[in-house]
């Protein structure tokens, strides 16, 4: 039995039945990481000692639950007590957090085994993981290509069998676009569904942590383990977690009304992506769903609204990196003032994309421009939300391609910020609205994975799993295997 090829469900069952120990499972994944991560670079930090200690606790019966003993990788934006957290930035290099994020804490308490921290675009700003200060992650399907971003490390870790599960965060698509281009499942839960406590803030009104997995059911189990009300996050929703696991198991779309968003197809989407998407939509009809076209006219303005709102919030959030409380300090020679030291530290500690967004956000918030940019973007956000709520009076879920194209070559869009920003075309509307959305594998184009996006009303995360589960099962039948089975073997 190759322990790294099992799903999370199979792994948990094998551990629970005593067929394998959690320590054996952890060792198998640490070995896999040692063998392939030199080529993939999904991890920024591997915590072998901590993983084996946690696995031993599961084997000793101290921790139990549906995912007890299952390894998980955490995006390096979630703070982890005693384990370095860099957010992909030099400014936090070497910082060891004194506490755990709520997500970290919940997963540990549920017996999951944290393998380490995954690579990401610095402060989650990017769509390719090339903006990591520690070098890019490579797509396991083709090591010369990007794994998506900002959570490329989490997606690549799952796709390369380094971990069956990973946690990502999604501000404008950073879970879903990497899932799409690596042939994995990625979910952005309803905003407020998963605690943001201990998640290093990029854009607080949009940031949301969620699961990355190889199957829809595995994602649902991780979703359930991390979600739920947290008094330490004042935006956390005080309501029961939607029944995502039950929905993933039922996986039935009979009678479900599915809307294809007219504004998220056609222009700007690669032909191969569009073809796979259209096939999946036809398949949903075969499976008993009622499919119709839906128009969301303001989605065309989601991208510009997002690139005003997110940088504005970032310019404020990142002010905390002041060279005093954590991380880097540069130029403190006793002669320079606090302001000079702060400015030198931030100039050296932040990378080019982060600086670009801080300055852009500062501009959008400055007097004289505020109403035309930030204020107008917030109004457009209201109109985008209305497009969603109007659409959901006639359909249960919306669908679109998750990413406009397949994984592009490393370096291809690095010098063209706007081209990079357009990767988030389809994923951004759900962040602005706050509703949940999923990317599920839809097939291949040019030998590379394509993702289908499902979007649902707020707190109806279960609907994503209903559709994703049904589609996954039907495509699996058609292909005779999961999509990832057609990924090339990595040299070991």
């Amino acid at each position: 039995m190759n322990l790294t090829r099992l799903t999370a469900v199979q792994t948990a069952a094998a551990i629970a039945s005593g067929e394998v120990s959690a320590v054996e499972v952890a060792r198998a994944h640490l070995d896999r990481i040692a063998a392939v991560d030199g080529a993939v670079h999904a991890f920024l930090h591997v915590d072998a000692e901590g993983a084996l200690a946690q696995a031993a606790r599961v084997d000793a019966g101290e921790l139990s639950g549906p995912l007890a003993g299952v390894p998980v990788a955490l995006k390096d934006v979630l703070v982890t007590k005693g384990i370095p957290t860099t957010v992909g930035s030099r400014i936090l290099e070497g910082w060891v957090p004194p506490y755990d994020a709520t997500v970290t804490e919940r997963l540990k308490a549920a017996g999951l085994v944290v393998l380490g921290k995954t690579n990401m675009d610095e402060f989650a700003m990017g769509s390719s993981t090339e903006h990591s200060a520690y070098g890019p992650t490579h797509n396991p399907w083709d090591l010369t290509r990007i794994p998506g971003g900002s959570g490329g490390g989490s997606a690549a870790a799952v796709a390369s069998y380094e971990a069956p599960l990973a946690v990502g965060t999604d501000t404008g698509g950073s879970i879903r676009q990497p899932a799409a281009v690596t042939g994995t499942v990625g979910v952005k839960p309803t905003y407020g569904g998963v605690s943001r406590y201990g998640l290093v803030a990029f854009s607080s009104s949009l940031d949301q942590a969620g699961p990355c997995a190889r199957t829809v059911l595995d994602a649902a189990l991780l979703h359930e383990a991390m979600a739920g009300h947290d008094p330490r996050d004042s935006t956390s929703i005080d309501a029961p977690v939607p029944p995502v696991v039950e929905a993933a198991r039922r996986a039935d779309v009979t009678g479900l009304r599915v809307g294809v968003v007219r504004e998220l197809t056609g222009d700007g989407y690669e032909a191969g992506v569009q073809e796979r998407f259209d096939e999946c939509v036809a398949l949903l009809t075969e499976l008993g769903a009622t499919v119709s076209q839906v128009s969301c006219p303001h989605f065309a303005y989601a991208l510009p609204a997002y690139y005003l709102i997110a940088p504005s919030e970032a310019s404020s959030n990142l002010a905390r990196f002041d060279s005093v409380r954590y991380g880097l300090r540069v130029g403190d020679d006793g002669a320079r003032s606090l302001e000079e030291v702060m400015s030198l530290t931030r100039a050296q500690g932040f990378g080019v994309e982060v600086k670009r967004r801080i300055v852009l956000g500062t501009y959008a918030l400055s007097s004289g421009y505020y109403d035309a940019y930030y204020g107008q973007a917030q109004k457009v956000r209201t109109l985008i939300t209305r497009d969603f709520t109007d659409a959901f009076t006639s359909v249960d879920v919306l669908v679109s391609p998750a990413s406009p194209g397949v994984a592009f070559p490393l370096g291809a869009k690095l010098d063209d910020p706007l081209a990079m920003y357009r990767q988030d075309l389809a994923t951004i509307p759900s962040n602005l609205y706050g509703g949940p959305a999923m990317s599920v594998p839809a097939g291949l184009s040019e030998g590379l994975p394509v993702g289908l996006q499902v979007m649902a009303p707020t707190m109806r995360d279960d609907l994503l799993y209903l559709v994703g589960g049904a589609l996954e099962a039907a495509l699996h039948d058609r292909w005779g295997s999961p999509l990832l089975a057609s990924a090339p073997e990595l040299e070991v």
Partner: protein
Amino acid sequence: MPEITREQVAHLARLSRLALDDDELDGLAAQLDVILVAVAQISQVTDAADVPPTTHAVPVENVTRPDVVAPSLDRDAVLAGAPYAEDGRFRVPRILDAE
């Protein structure tokens, strides 16, 4: 619409506490101009005039808790992550001009 000058970028960098060199300022001015032209499209949304702005995705009300002392992070553990600490405090560069 936008035509952002190098001087404006230098001012914004100062406000953002970023000590950017001349090359960075030139590069940023050119890129920001392109980005701002693209995002300025939102001015075309004419039906936004009477729409209330959204500040948050889900309606949130102030969340309060009883004002009682509860355990918080250990001081030494927090200071261990600081670039410089002294006598149980964060040490900062001078904030007043020297005599």
